């Protein structure tokens, strides 16, 4: 998006800042009166005095933070405060993958946060993949604020050429005890018959903000398999839009979240069926403890010409105590008549019959609850088709469970 296109938008002011004029962006964040942001208030974000995060030199990050897995066989690409860090990244991404940093490229999203990103992002990182036998990529985005709260705006573009198949794992983390705001925008284009597996883990520090906007367009015959894991952060939103651009395209968009403390996670998805013969399925499962807040907003849009669309969506959540709030808002907008669309939502507590069954075998209540929660989330993680990643995400959930006392959360 060019500055001239958004000149009437409040963030035009932010664009001005890029040119050297100081304009506060925090007065222009979406508010609770905007339907899409009703469940995710940005007051705290607006009231935190952020400075632009330092891109490289002064940031003392020489190794990956704890908890970031080393993924055998994957080429590592590290961003610190949104900027590509060659020194922490692998030098060789293997044949067929080109990494380039460029001046911020256009994004198709016009969401306020994407515009904010457009205004502030310094350089974008492009991953262009083509050809067979591509090496998986492990993208690690690290937030490192320093003494003052810092904001950064990673900008990513991923293209997968016709017939090519790429796997990317993203770990979004931060240095402990720091307040930062990560506002990534990801633009993904899958060409005809291209295939992308994208596994995103957001485990930001407990004081961190993370508002991500991703737009994925899939050409004819292309397919996306995505999994989004939400484990940490004060305020996290993963905004994912999938646009079907050609016949026979398919998307599986799944996710899981496990929330504690005052953590807030929002998954907002849009499945935009504009052409016939495409399939989309979504399975999101979450558990919430403490005073946390989980949000799932899933919109399925089927245009009049998008006949033979098959679109499914399921969100299930468990309360682990009386404190959390979970909001679920499925939206189906269907204008075609020959389609199969289904959505389901269920929110409840741990099943008493299941709990009794486990306890009747001598398993103490805390362990029984842990097993049930793990089993509940595992069902979603099982949707991941790469066994190594499945194990990785399962371990991350296991570690989350260990860090909590589920027993104390007994209602």
């Amino acid at each position: 998006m060019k500055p001239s296109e958004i000149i009437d938008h409040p963030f035009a002011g932010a664009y001005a800042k890029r040119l050297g004029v100081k304009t506060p962006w925090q007065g222009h964040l979406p508010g609770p009166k905007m339907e899409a942001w009703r469940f995710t208030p940005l007051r705290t974000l607006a009231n935190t005095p952020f400075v632009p995060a330092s891109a490289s030199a002064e940031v003392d990050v020489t190794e990956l933070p704890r908890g970031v897995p080393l993924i055998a066989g994957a080429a590592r690409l590290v961003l610190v405060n949104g900027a590509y860090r060659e020194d922490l990244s692998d030098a060789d991404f293997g044949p067929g993958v080109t990494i380039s940093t460029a001046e911020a490229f256009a994004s198709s999203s016009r969401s306020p946060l994407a515009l904010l990103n457009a205004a502030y992002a310094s350089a974008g990182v492009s991953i262009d993949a083509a050809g067979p036998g591509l090496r998986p990529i492990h993208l690690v985005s690290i937030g490192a604020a320093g003494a003052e709260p810092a904001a950064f705006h990673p900008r990513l573009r991923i293209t997968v050429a016709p017939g090519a198949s790429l796997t990317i794992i993203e770990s979004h983390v931060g240095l402990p005890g720091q307040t930062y705001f990560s506002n990534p925008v990801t633009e993904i284009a899958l060409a005809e018959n291209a295939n992308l597996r994208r596994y995103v883990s957001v485990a930001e520090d407990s004081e961190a903000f993370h508002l991500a906007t991703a737009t994925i367009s899939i050409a004819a015959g292309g397919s996306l398999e995505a999994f989004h894991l939400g484990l940490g952060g004060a305020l996290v939103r993963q905004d994912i839009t999938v646009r079907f651009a050609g016949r026979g395209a398919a998307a599986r968009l799944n996710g899981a979240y496990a929330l504690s403390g005052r953590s807030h996670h929002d998954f907002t998805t849009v499945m935009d069926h504009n052409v016939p013969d495409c399939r989309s399925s979504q399975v999101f499962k979450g558990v919430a403890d403490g005073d946390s807040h989980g949000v799932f907003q899933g919109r399925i849009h089927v245009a009049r010409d998008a006949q033979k669309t098959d679109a499914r969506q399921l969100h299930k959540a468990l309360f682990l105590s009386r404190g959390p709030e979970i909001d679920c808002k499925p939206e189906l907008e269907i204008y075609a008549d020959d389609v199969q669309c289904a959505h389901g939502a269920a929110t409840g507590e741990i099943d008493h019959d299941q709990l009794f069954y486990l306890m009747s075998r001598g398993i103490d209540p805390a362990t029984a609850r842990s097993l049930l929660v793990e089993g509940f989330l595992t069902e979603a993680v099982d949707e991941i088709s790469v066994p190594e990643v499945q194990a990785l995400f399962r371990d991350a959930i296991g570690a989350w469970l260990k860090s909590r006392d589920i027993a104390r959360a007994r209602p």
Partner: protein
Amino acid sequence: MALLEIKNLHASVAGKEILKGITLSVEPGAVHAIMGPNGTGKSTLSNVIAGREGYDVTQGEVLLDGKNVLAMSPDERARAGIFLAFQYPVEIPGVTTSAFLKTALNAKRRAEGKTEVDAMEFLKLVKAKTAALGMPYDMIKRALNVGFSGGEKKRAEVLQMTLLEPRLAILDETDSGLDIDALKVVSDGVNALRAPDRAFLVITHYQRLLDYIVPDHVHVLAHGRIAASGGKDLALELEAEGYAKYLDTAA
């Protein structure tokens, strides 16, 4: 000392009294059958002993090896040696049978002051037990009871019982939903567990199961009380004559 001692047990569900004074003493090594028509409190009795919530004991005692069972949580009761084979085993999605069995087995071993079994020992143990029950070993890789047939679920219950080696096993309508072949396999599994230091409470509506698991004592439960007790012949008599006379006299 009796292994299980039930003294004047009264219990109600949602304010309605279901058990109205049950007294029963079970010696080690014995198999007691509890028979009776539907709705007389057979399942309530098993649930009260196992500690399911929603049942209020208003009077009486349940002692296992002289210890007050009613003061224990369900998991404590299980570790003390009570095992309830469920009429309807609960499906636990996402939890593999193997992970569940290992957790349960080690919980019991810890309680007994034994070392936990490691992965290798565990697999060896389960391999032997599943083979003895005619179960495919791969079954333990599946989510617990999820998608199991009626017969598979009951076999899985017996597998758990075999691994946990309880002092007192309660079989709640274990024969329901089983065809004759599955019934035989399950019964063989139970019979193999009969031991001088172990007792069974076999709860059933039909006499059929007792052809395979032959009881030492048979009790008729009617209107929340034990209306009659006898040897294994009592079961045959019930099969021939029905429960009508107990319902009439107890009413």
